[in-house]
């Protein structure tokens, strides 16, 4: 069983009291406990089981405007004492930073409603095994599939965040995650693809058979890929890739990147950064949402934020420290976005695919080719050549490149948005990018 609120609260207040006693002017502490159980399958039989049970503690101590932090997994009182002493000694010799402080008291979350983020259902390993058997059975029906690997993880977590201004709250969360990776082979090639499902509640997890089928189908269609010639061509990003554009955008508007001047979106508030039709929203209070939260990692209340409105940048993602630097109030985004999404567009998936006589449909990218200082983007890609709305053949060993500043302004979104993950996007088309191939 995951430790209860009382246990975590008692550890948190022990830490705060001790820090105060030693002379810290302020302190904040997070105590968490998490239990995970994973079962792995390979080629329709059990491959591994993994159980993890972990406590974690992190403390920030302040002496005026000096701050330092410690973290540990050892929650014995004696060890905590040694660590807090060390932390406070370090704080004393750490130079002051005028922007260091606990969050403003009036911004702290007060009333905390239930977002239904915890499902206490136990899904015993035997049941996980049954689920994975069904999944791999359905993933292996085609004889081109030569390897299947799948896993099911059940996680239960609890935490308390407390600070010396009297904030003390936390809540339990759960997640159930299952994934399937399949390898297919034909005379020309060997390819891999995947499918997964991750939910707060067990009953929302995709059916094993559907997941297995989908993984296999997505893998088989990649067989015997071709390399295409270098070209400027319109690119359609599958949903699982288009959401990555949102993640890059979110990193570029974090108050930390803005305050340091290392973002291509610095000083762009109230300016057009996306096409007119684009709206981007970050909504923390979606019931059962994978990214939902009652408050951010500093205890600050977080409300829904419209980040992009009709293409115009409206908000950064602000935490306390960088907010003070930028003269902005924290908007509860210490720790980043919550449930981030593009509002759906007004063209159907089918029409988007047909929009150009020739386009490239991307299902996977590899590499870390996003430069958030300059906006330059260049990654390896895998996908399909689409002609007149039809998938012609799989394509690989190519790269796609552009600059976010131009790419964002040339986005067209389909109307197929679904809320599956913590970052969600409809299928996306971007015009004007360069493909490098043969």
């Amino acid at each position, binding site marked *: 069983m995951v430790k209860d609120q009382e246990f975590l609260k008692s550890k948190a207040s022990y830490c705060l009291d001790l820090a105060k006693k030693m002379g810290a002017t302020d302190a904040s502490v997070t105590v968490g406990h998490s239990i995970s159980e994973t079962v792995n399958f*390979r080629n329709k039989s*059990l*491959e*591994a*089981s*993994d*159980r*993890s*049970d*972990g406590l974690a503690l992190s403390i920030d101590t302040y002496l005026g405007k000096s701050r*330092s*932090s*410690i*973290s*540990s*997994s*050892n929650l*014995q009182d*004696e060890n905590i004492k040694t660590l807090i002493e060390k932390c406070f000694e*370090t704080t004393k*010799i*750490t*130079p002051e*930073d005028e922007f260091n402080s606990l969050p403003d008291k009036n911004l702290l979350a007060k009333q905390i409603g239930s977002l239904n983020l915890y499902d206490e259902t136990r899904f015993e*390993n035997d049941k996980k095994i049954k689920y994975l058997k069904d999944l791999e059975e359905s993933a292996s029906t085609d004889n081109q599939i030569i*390897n299947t*690997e799948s896993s099911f993880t059940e996680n239960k977590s609890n935490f308390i965040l407390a600070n010396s201004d009297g904030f003390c709250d936390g809540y339990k969360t759960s997640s159930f995650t299952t994934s399937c990776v399949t*390898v297919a082979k034909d005379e020309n090639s*060997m*390819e*891999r693809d995947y499918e997964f499902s991750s939910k707060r509640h067990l009953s929302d997890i995709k059916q094993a058979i559907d997941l297995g089928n989908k993984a296999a189908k997505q893998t088989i269609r990649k067989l015997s*890929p071709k*390399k295409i010639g*270098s070209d*400027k061509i319109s690119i359609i990003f599958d949903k699982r890739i288009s959401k990555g554009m949102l993640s890059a955008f979110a990193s570029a508007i974090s108050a930390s990147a803005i305050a*340091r*001047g*290392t973002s291509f979106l610095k000083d762009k508030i109230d300016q057009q950064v996306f096409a007119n039709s684009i709206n981007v929203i970050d909504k923390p209070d979606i019931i059962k949402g994978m990214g939902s939260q009652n408050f951010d990692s500093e205890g600050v209340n977080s409300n829904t934020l419209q980040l992009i409105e009709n293409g115009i940048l409206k908000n950064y993602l602000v935490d306390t420290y960088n907010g003070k630097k930028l003269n902005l109030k924290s908007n509860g985004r210490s720790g980043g976005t919550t449930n981030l999404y593009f509002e759906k567009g007004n063209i159907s998936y089918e029409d988007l695919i047909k929009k150009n006589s020739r386009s490239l449909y991307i299902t*996977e990218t*590899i*590499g*870390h*080719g996003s*430069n958030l*200082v*300059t906006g*330059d983007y*260049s*990654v*390896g890609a*895998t996908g399909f050549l689409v002609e007149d709305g039809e998938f012609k053949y799989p394509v*690989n*060993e*190519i*790269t796609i*490149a552009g*600059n976010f500043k131009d790419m964002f302004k040339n986005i067209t979104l389909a109307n197929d948005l679904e809320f599956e993950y913590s970052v969600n996007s409809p299928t996306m088309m971007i015009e004007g990018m*360069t493909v*490098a*191939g043969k």
Partner: protein
Amino acid sequence: MSNFFNKSDLTRQDADKLVSETLNNCDDGELYLEESKSESILLDDNKIKSSNYSSDLGFGFRAISNEVVAYSYSNEISKDSLKNSSENLKSTLKSIKGIYNHEIPKSNKKFYKDINPIEQKTLDSKLEVLNKVNDFLRKKDGSVKQVTASFAGEQKSIEIIRSGGEALTDVRPLIRFNVSVMLEKNGRKETGVYGIGGRQSYDDYLKNDNWKNVCEEAFRIASVNLESKPAPAGEMKVVLGPGWPAILIHEAIGHGLEGDFNRKKTSAFHDLMGEKVANEGVTIVDDGTIDNRRGSLTIDDEGTPTERTVLIENGILKNFMQDRHNARLMNTRSTGSGRRENYRHIVLPRMRNTMMLSGNQTQDEMIKSVDKGIFAVSFGGGQVDITSGKFVFNCTEAYEINNGKIGSPIKGATLIGDGPSILKEVSMVGNDMMLDPGIGTCGKAGQGVPVGVAQPSILIDKMTVGGTKL
């Protein structure tokens, strides 16, 4: 050396007994105990932005029978906790029986000193170096708009207890010093990053004001990039500089030669053992035994002494990298490549220091031989799809080559290639093999471990450069 039993109700004898009893009917497994102390100090935006100290303690208990691995970890070292884990392992493996393999090779060699780098240098003196870095760079040039510098240090003590009571221990120091600088000129911004590190004390790296060299290098890379033009797009010849660009070897070849992917036949290399996979001049080794290197290990995380494993010799595929589990299932021996990020993770076969050895040509000859291509000197990260063999890496410093001469710098671009065929495109191997500066971390299955790479300059006849200029 940590004593894992002095603050617990669990005695050494209890642990030995429980380990033997749990693993009695298994093929392999061990109790892995780990204590780590780590520190990170970050200067950013003219200030000490954070100083963090962390201590971590825990165990991972593993039992293996046939192809099934059962694993359980906890950060509470106690009788109850270990018993719970034991029950958990037994329940997974209840219907599978094995015969425990007691054999484990021994060695007295050590590849780093038993030190705690964090304690060897006072916090004050570390803060002083970071502040000097900041002042030095900001005074150096008016275009310097942002400086980030950091120290990270760690000491990790491990003990491996095997069935029958055999115990193996190791103490591993690791440090890293990193500088990132952003320049702004005529409205353009570019960054340059450089770092050094390994399994030594901070002072071994910072003597003779060596931090200045790190600053100069980060500044030089950023300055070059301020002048960069859009990179070309398409297939062309690529000359790679020596040292860190060997992450190409790591991504393109290294991962595909890890035992697990080959046992599962999901690697593009699984049926190529003994075959010619590279041009004659190409020899690649994975070496865990180089003194004080970031990827070196005295013993791996299963207790096997590390070694210098020849992967490809004169173009012929010779060995895969193995941990005990995959080695047993493939009827071979462990190469001392069983690694894990920490006690929370299972062991996987991983790289250590992956190196392409020197040939006898010069970088000059390579450049001169290229009509149109690029010269890539430094890289960010890379990634590979093991199954299709396709891999990428990102240039952070590169130039165009025209008619045998190095031309303008080009913007960061991704290079993409095919692992099994890329070594056949290596047509010249330089005489200038160099180790990387000690900054690599390899990610696999969600686990990051420190690694090293090395290579001489090489000429690749055909690779796709992912620029924007057609």
